[in-house]
Each structure stands twice: as C-alpha cells, then as structure tokens.
C-alpha cells in the first residue's frame, strides 16, 4: 500500500507542492489528497488586487486544475474545511463529516488578514463578518467587490500603508477610482524603509493620484451607506475619511489553529525544523505562510535570527519544492535516504518590489542607518566583522532616492525609488550577496541618459566607419579624392557599407563634408 499524503490548504504554495509530487502520484508511489476551503483550486493570491482593478482575469490567475489533478489520481476536495486532526489515529476530520487517514500531513493553511480593532467591525479572528463595503481583499470574491467599486469610479479607502495597501490604492487610482491610503507613522511601509525614501515615495504616490493620510489613527467605521454599508473611516482626532469601499490592508496572521488544536507547538506560525517537520511529530509538516522555521535546537545560529513567516511567495515555493523532494524520497527510499537530503537553506530577508505601473520601488533588508549614524553602523561590527557603510542618493525633486547599506561591500539593506535599472541591479546584487562596485555611483548612473549610445560620431580619420568591411574614414576620403561622389561608388571602391548598411549615413556625411569643404 503506497503512502498517503494529505495536504491541508490549496493555495499557491500547496499547488507547487502538489505539482512537484504529481509524478510520484502518477507512478503510484504515493497517494495524495489535497483539501481546499475555497470552491476554487489554487490561484495566484498575489495578484488579487490586480484582478480587483480589472487588470487581469480570474482564469489567468489559476495555478491548478482540479479536474486534471483528479484525472491524474489526486484526491482533490474543494469547498471543504479540515475541522480537526486526530494525531493518534492519523485522521483528518472534514467539515462534510468524512474522516480520512494520512501517513504524512502537510499544513499549507496560509494566513488570514488581520482585522483591526475598530468599532463597527467584528474582530473575531476565526470568522469575521464584515459589513457591506468593507473587504480584506484576500480572495476572488473580495476582488469582485473591489472590481465593481473601481469600475464605477467610487471612493476607495485603504487602511494600512503596507505593500499590498499601496499597490491596491495606486492601481485603483490609475484605473479610475479615488483612492486614499490611511496609515500611521509619517510615511508608508513603516520600518522597512527610511525617512528619505518614505517622503519621496509619499510624493510619488500623491503624483500618482493617491491621497495619503499619514499619522492617522483610525478608531471605527461608519456604516451609513446604502443598506448599512461602509460610508467613512473614523479617526481618533474626530475627523472622518469618507468613502464607498474600505479595503483593510493591515497585514496577515498565520492560520495555526488546526495545528494548535491538535497540540503542536506554535509561535507566530506552526513551528518546524529545517526539514519543515513539526516538533515531536516528524510525519507532519508545514510550509508557506503558516510555517515558522525555527528549530528546537537553541544553539542553532540560523534560527537565532529567524523571523516570523514573511508573507512572501518565494520562500513558500522553495519550501514546497524542497518538501516535495523530501516526501518522494521518503516514500521511495525510506527515512535514512530522506534524512540524507541537504536541509533547506535559510531564507534571506525578503525583497519587496512594489507591483505598480507608475512607481518604481524596491526594498530589502535593514535601511534604518544613515551615513553618519555611528551607533547603528557599528552595531554588529566586532571580532573582525566590518562595520556597516551607507551610501545615499536623494533627488526628491525628480522623485529619486537610493540607499545602499553594506557590510564588507555586500548589501544588508537597499531601498530605491524612481530608478528602475538601479533597483533591478541592486536587488540582483542583494539576492546573490555580490560585492558592490567600490564606486557606488556606477549603480546610480544606470538610469541616466549617458547609458544610451550617443549618435555622435567622432572625426578621427583613422576611426572605423564600416565595421563589417573594416574600412576607415581615411580610406573613404581617399576614394572620394579618387573621384567617388556617391554612396554606391564609395561602396564599390572600398567595400564600406556593404555589410549591415549601418554606416550609410556616416558615409554620406563624409561625402557631403568633403564637397562642402571643396566648395568653400
């Protein structure tokens, strides 16, 4: 009897896991069951806001096809919740009353939006009931709500200055809605960026048509709209921000109650070791947003700096790929072979690139230090470890700002606003831990006009005019002196211009110049 793997949750991370295990299902090595709470199979949650503003379609977001998976032998259960897990019997109990055995169980339960404590909102974390006109923009149904508001050019209030909130507001604004971002602190994105980039970013958002309400503390929602729907967000200074739709973008929290319910250790997320195994229960695993990789070994250096689940997709997908291989090896070759696999390498701090048309922003790592912050720069510089260094470029007038925080020339933090090429290069350098060029300004010039080949031509007579045939300006002038006065004749005499033809204008110019000089 082949081993039975049950995956709890069917989001993008679970979809990757299922895809990777699929060959083993087809070959009969393992049985696979995946349980998804939503009626749809996995779709790309990262792009729900794009769907909400009408920039993509629900079909295009699909990441799995339930019917195809079933045809391949995967037991797919959609619109069904796992109610509880019986560890002793190795059973999952489903909301439809059925009970299913597992040999291995993978939590891929993801996260749920944080519902802020506001008067007028039910804060019950397990099943918030939001009033009409309030959405947390998490699934396809939420997207449909946003879609109709944007299509009608309604007023959209986004509560929260995180990445998703900014992306939603900017996209909604660009697609015709009137968007306002309400956030606490002087600038959005909080501690992940610094003041300089924060103010440049705020300005850019305003130029993009988004109203920015900073340093705002919201206290409640007013539901005086039609049918008791949302009408305004109330602030602690007594003011209110009127709107037709409130998008809650206050972060997410791992969904861990199933794991907690069966007695597994949890922190922010479900605690797992470097093999993604839950503590004390090596045949249960967790991946993606619900998993917190922090091994029980107190001396583990990787885990000392471990952070809560990042909420980014990349780490979850890497976990899914790794775990799929582990599970397949386990089923095929046994525990010893699976344990021999290299453990999953620790994740680097995540990189955030704002998904936006009008604004270019990339952020990663720690960006708090300024070039002259001795205390912050010296932090962590001991026993031969170099101190941090900060290079900075600020051009608020043109909406450009870059900060690079390095140690030993390698990026520990980066933030770039309004400089796409620079941002792209810095992110690649950060991801690879590559050393930056000593002259950091090289990275700032990538977006400059001097990076394009100029059309100016040199007047050195020895310069090569025609690369294809290797003909110098001097040879062309000689041919003109010998009587050639058209492009065709020069080409015939010198072969210049007979290859790619790119120098034809140049040759004509030399002929013209020659005869102008002669006439003068």
């Amino acid at each position, binding site marked *: 009897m082949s081993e039975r793997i049950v995956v709890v949750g069917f989001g993008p991370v679970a979809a990757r896991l299922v895809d990777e295990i699929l060959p083993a299902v087809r070959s009969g090595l393992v049985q696979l069951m995946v349980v998804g709470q939503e009626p749809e199979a996995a779709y790309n949650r990262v792009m729900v806001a794009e769907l909400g503003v009408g920039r993509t379609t629900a079909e295009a977001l699909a990441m799995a096809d339930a019917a195809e998976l079933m045809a391949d032998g995967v037991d797919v259960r959609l619109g069904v919740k796992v109610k509880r897990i019986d560890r002793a019997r190795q059973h999952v109990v489903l909301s439809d009353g059925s009970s299913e055995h597992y040999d291995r169980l993978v939590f891929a339960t993801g996260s749920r939006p944080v519902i802020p404590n506001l008067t007028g909102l039910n804060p019950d974390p397990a099943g918030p009931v939001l009033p009409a006109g309030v959405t947390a923009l998490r699934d396809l149904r939420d997207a449909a709500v946003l879609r109709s508001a944007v299509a009608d050019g309604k007023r959209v209030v986004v509560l929260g200055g995180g990445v998703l909130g900014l992306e939603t507001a900017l996209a909604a604004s660009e697609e015709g809605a009137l968007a306002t971002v309400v956030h606490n602190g002087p600038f959005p994105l909080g501690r992940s960026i610094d003041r300089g980039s924060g103010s440049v970013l705020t300005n850019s958002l305003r130029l993009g048509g988004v109203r920015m309400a900073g340093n705002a503390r919201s206290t409640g929602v007013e539901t005086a709209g039609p049918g008791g729907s949302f009408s305004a967000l109330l602030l602690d200074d007594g003011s209110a921000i009127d709107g037709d739709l409130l998008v809650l973008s206050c972060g997410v929290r791992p969904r861990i109650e199933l794991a907690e319910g069966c007695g597994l250790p949890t922190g922010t997320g479900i605690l797992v070791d470097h093999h993604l195994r839950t503590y004390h229960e090596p045949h249960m695993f967790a991946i993606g947003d619900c998993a917190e990789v922090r091994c029980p070994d107190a001396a583990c250096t990787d885990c000392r700096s471990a952070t809560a689940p990042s909420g980014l997709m990349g780490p979850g997908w890497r976990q899914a790929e790794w775990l799929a291989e582990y599970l397949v090896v386990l089923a095929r070759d046994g525990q010893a072979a699976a344990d021999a696999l290299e453990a999953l390498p620790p994740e680097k701090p995540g990189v955030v690139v704002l998904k936006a048309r009008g604004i270019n922003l990339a952020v990663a790592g720690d960006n708090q230090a300024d070039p002259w912050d001795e205390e912050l720069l010296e932090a962590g510089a001991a026993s031969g470890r170099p101190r941090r260094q900060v290079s900075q470029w600020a051009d608020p007038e043109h909406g450009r700002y870059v900060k690079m925080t390095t140690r030993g020339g390698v990026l520990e933090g980066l933030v770039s606003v309004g400089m796409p090429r620079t941002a792209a290069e810095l992110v690649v350098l950060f991801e690879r831990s590559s050393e930056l060029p000593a002259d950091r300004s090289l990275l700032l010039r990538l977006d400059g006009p001097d990076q394009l080949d100029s059309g100016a031509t040199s007047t050195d007579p020895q310069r090569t005019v025609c690369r294809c045939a*290797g003909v110098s300006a001097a040879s062309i002038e000689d041919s003109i002196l010998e009587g050639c006065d058209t492009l065709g004749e020069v080409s015939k005499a010198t072969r210049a211009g007979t290859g790619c033809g790119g120098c034809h204008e140049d040759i004509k110019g030399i002929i013209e110049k020659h005869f102008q000089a002669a006439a003068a």
Partner: protein
Amino acid sequence: MPNGADTHCPYCALQCAMTLTPATTDSAAPGPVAAPTAEPAHPTPPLEVSGRDFPTNRGGLCRKGWTSASLLHHNGRVTEPLLKGSDGVHQPISWDQALMLIAAAVKDTQKQHGNDAVGVFGGGGLTNEKAYQLGKFARLALRTSRIDYNGRFCMSSAAAAGNRAFGVDRGLPFPVTDLDTASVILMLGSNVAETMPPFVPHLQGARDAGGLIVVDPRRSATAALTSDGGGLHLQPTPGTDLALLLGISHVVVHEGLVDAEFIAAKTTGYAALVRSLNAFWPERVQTITGVPANLIRETARRLAHGVRTGGSYILSGRGVEQHVDGTDTATAAINLSLLLGLPGSARSGYGTLTGQGNGQGGREHGQKADQLPGYRKITDPAARAHIAKVWGVDESLIPGPGLPAVELLKSLGKTDGVRCLFVHGANVVVSAPDTNAVTAGLRALDFLVVCDFFMSETAAEADLVLPVTQWAEEEGTLTNLEGRVIRRRQALTPPPGVRSELWLMARLAERLEAPSIFSDDPESVFEELRLASAGGLADYSGIDYAMLDRGEAAYWPYPVGSTGTPRLFGDGFAHSDGRAVMVPVTPSKRAVRSFADDSLALATGRLLEHYQSGAQTRRVEALMAAQPQARLLIHPGTAASRGIADGDYATVTNERGEVLCRAELSNSVRADTVFLPFHFPGQENANRLTEAATDPISGMPEFKTSRVWVKKAGATPAAAIAVGVRVPVYVKEAL
C-alpha cells in the same frame, strides 16, 4: 585553373551569395610558377570576390566574406596526407598508404573493442551531400552508432524545442525577407551585427518603427541598434533568459494580449501554460533577471501591438540556447510566440537563427546520433525500413542511436568508449566545452583521423591528417538559415593531392567492404539524398541540381510534385493533430546561485572578424590584423576592484582551466559578467573554462554562464606577447 563561379560564402548560415572571378594579376595563378625562394605568408588570392544579389544578402558581404578567397592558395594549406611520426612530427604519405592505414586501424580497433569503438565527429559546415554520406558511412562502412557533430553545440536546443512544439525544426520557417516589413522584432541572444552583418538590413523596418527589442546581457553591436529610438535593449543577468521570457508571457496572458482564436484553433496546452506562468509576474522576474518590470511589460505590449501593425517576430540565437536549460528557454520563446499567435501567420513568426554555414542541412540528414536522413528518428521502425530500402541493405545493418557530441567526446579513449575517431569539418580542441578534457581525450585515442584543409589545432593532434577541398573547389548544396537549398559551385581546381571527403568515403567504403553504393560525385549523392529524404520531415525529393542552377528558390519540405514550402505552418503544424504544443517550462534550480565568492559569469561569443574556432579566419591576414587576439570584455567597475586597467593581461580561471589574455574595459558588459570570444586557441581558448554539463533534452552544453574568477596577471608571460599571425605547426614544403 580558376574559372570562377556564382556560389555562396564559405562561412555562416546566411550564406551570402557571391561571385568568384579569376584574379586579374598573373601572380595569382597557381601551378607552374617558379617556386619562390621565400614563400609569402599570404599569396595573392587566385579569385576575386564580389557580392551577388540574393534575397538574404542583397549583394552585401562582411569582411569575412570579402577576404574568403585568400585562404585558397594560403601556404598553410595541407596538400598531402600527413602521418604523425613517433617524434610527433607530421610527414607526408601517399593517399594509398593513408587509406590502407585507416582501413587497418578501423578493423583492428573493432576486432579488439567492438564496432562502437570507432566514432565520427562531423560538422555543420559540411555540404548536404557530405553530411548525408557521413551518416551513411558511419553506419554502413564503419558499422558504428557513434556519430555526432558540432551542431550539437549550436542548434540542438532550438531544434529540440522546435520539434517538441511544432513537430518540425526549420530554423526560420519563413524567408528572411519577411522580416523587412515587421514592426516589432524581438532578438533573443543573437548578435547578428557581428555574426552575420548582411542580415542587419532586414531589421531596418522594425528599427524605423522603434520596434527592435534585443535581449542580451551585453550591449552588443546588435543591442546598440536599438539606440536612438530603434527600440529596447533588455540586459538580463546571464542564465536568466528563461525567467525573462516567462515574465513577458505572463504579461501577455494577464493583460489580455493573447490571440485567443489562434490558441483555440491551433494549439494545445494553453491552460497548463497559463498556470505555469502565474508565478512569474514582472516584479518577481525583475528580482531574478535584473530587467526592470516596466521593460518587461513594455516588451509584451509592443509585441502584441506589432501583430496588429506590420507584424511581430521572435528570433532566438545561441545566447539563450547554449545553456543546460536551452531547450526549455527556446520553448519559452516559442510559447510566447504561440500566445501571440505568431507562428504560421503570414506577417509574424518565430524562428531561430542558424549559425554554421550548413547548420540547417547538416542537422537533417543523419549526422546526428539519433537521426536518419530526412530528419527521421533512428528509433522509428518505419524510418529505418525506408532508409534500409534506399541504401539497399537489411535494416538490421543500421545501428541504433549513438551518443550526443559531449558524451561522445567524454568517451574518447575510455573503456567501452571511442578509441578510433574521424573528425570532419570540426575543430573540437578549440570549439568543444571543457577543451582541456577534450584534448586529453583525443590524446588517449588509439587513432585519430582529421580531415581539414589547414593544420587546425585538432588536426595537430591527429595521427593522420587528410587534406580536403575548400568551398570554392567543390560542388554541392547547402541549406541556409531559412531552409532554402542553395548551390555551392566549383570555381577552381583544388591543389593536387587534395581530395573531396566524398571521394575519401567512397574509397574507404570499398576497403572496408561496405554494402550499398558510395558515390564520389556530389550530384549522384544528392540524388540518393532525395530518395532517402522522401516522406521525411525534411523532404528534398522534389529538388534537383538543375532547378537550383536555374535559380529557383527551393525551401523544404519539397516533395516531388510540389513547389516547396517558403512558409511553414500556414495549414497547421507538423504534429498529427495539426496543432502546436505549448509545453510549460520553469527555470532550473541551477539558475539560482550565489556570487558571494567574487566569481563572475563568463559568456562566450563571437567577433565580426572571426568564424567558429578561427581555423580559417585566423589565417586571413586582414582579419588577424583587426582582431589578433582574444580580449576579455570586463566592466570598468569590476576591473577597478581587481586592479585591472585597459589592456592589462588578466587570468580567467575556474576548476577546469585558465585563460590568459588582455582585458578590454567596457561598460557594454554587465558588472557581474565578463565576455570572451571563443575563436582563439591555446591559452586564449575560452572553452578551457566552459563546462561539459548538458541540456537533458538536446545535449547542448552550457557555454554562456560559466563561473570564473578574474585576476590581473602577474608578470606577463612571454608567450602571451607572441600574438599575431600564428605559424602553423606544419608548414608544407615548397613546391
């Protein structure tokens, strides 16, 4: 005596038409001229070259073509069979001795080690007739399965992807001139401005429309064509082309730019492809590739817009194909083209730009380990039966599939490997990946026969070097990059002592008592090729020399009774259901790696002045004067941190070898990348550093992302200064 001819250039797959006419000066005539006391290094060529009007080159030629005749009477020419003595020096022997020796070596080797201990390594520069005959010779005369060729290093990934998606692989499934009116052309890892300059005018329409989009980590000469409003240059970090293509496709899907009608009617696999693309939104792709998300979106939109205006074309080259995931990268390019509905459209399309002179024909007629003539599979019983019938042999005499090039070369001298090797039209010592290992393999052979017209670096390793004809000395056909069959014509008599490879195979077949017929007449061989290819994918059965000589444009498939196929896919694709297959692909995990250790990515490529291993172009005075040595292209910032100034000698090393050459500082290359041309031998040989890791589907090696460390060279070794025209190992005796 030279008599001149209308023929085509000896070098790349554009096969520019040229006319050769006898040189006007007397001194150019070969033969009964008194032997000079000191032969000039570069005698005056016996023929003059002029461009000839033809749709591909329109009378244009590049420097390589203009100077090609200077090799005809070059004094480094090998004109007699040369046997390496125990002292390592090659000495002339007669053809009769040479043939006897080979026959004995083949028989001995096979008696001791089995039939597969004899191997053949062919080339994409051989005429169709030679490539066809070589496959037949290997299987029937040498009775070995071990034949493959250097096209494995060029076209194999694109070929595998084309076959998988379309059911057929013809580099450009449309005439080159179709590009003239396009409004958008996406060039993926192809530097035509250096490799085939007369191709560039075909990009002019797109440049005028601002629609030339070049993907290249380097600001190559082709990438520079996008400046001044010509289009866009996308500069991904090496090895990330696949992710970039997925990002562009992602935008096409999500922004509703797909050709839904085409997809529904002409393709399969759309839904699965869409699912696979979901993970590659532009901002994520930016973090992988270093290409800004806005450029990724812009590219997708321009391609879609181009379809509705003058047409959109996607062309791929070795830059994206010569990777361990080359087949998947080419597949991603094809998927993008299918999403946009380009293939089969009269004004849009996808194609790959074939590199070697006969890189197209050379990959169709049995030079590949897994293939029989007409682009047939050697494992297909019907194909075997057909070919056995044409050859007049029992099917059981045709061996099964052999080893692809890299595996073949790895097996040299090994137990159960190849111990006696024939090399035709290839210079593997310079051109194969991990060349130090290849050279060691050649030296471990019991017997190495190399057919060449010069003492190439590979010929220098040979036990026996056989002098063969050059392009202007022979008749035959080639198939250019658009699948058009063209004629190569003889313009002068070869030097005495030089033989054609067809002649050689015919004589050896006799001595090895091979079944079937081995003609030494090109036209007769072509007539047999016609029959062999009939009914295959690459069907030449309706083509003959007479029609080619009348100037008819013959594009395969050209079955008897048809008029050929200038444009493929108009009536559907070559799979049985007539649909193209979209195969979801994702980047390999190998692509993600750390550069924390100060390493750089090495990309290899070409210079305008040289062709392939440089065995020919390094012997042309004008070309060597222009590009005498390999130069390492390095970003000024990267050079500065290593203390390297422009013109300094630098070492480029990794676990496989070391290259020593001058550095050229340029911001045309990314700071994380260095570039080396691969035309140079010895300590400048870029392939000392490339890895013999291969694509699992095509067998293509990884040429473009080797990991290397670059340092300023210490005291400049004397040998490094001795550049310029190299003296061949063997200089033939004066006449």
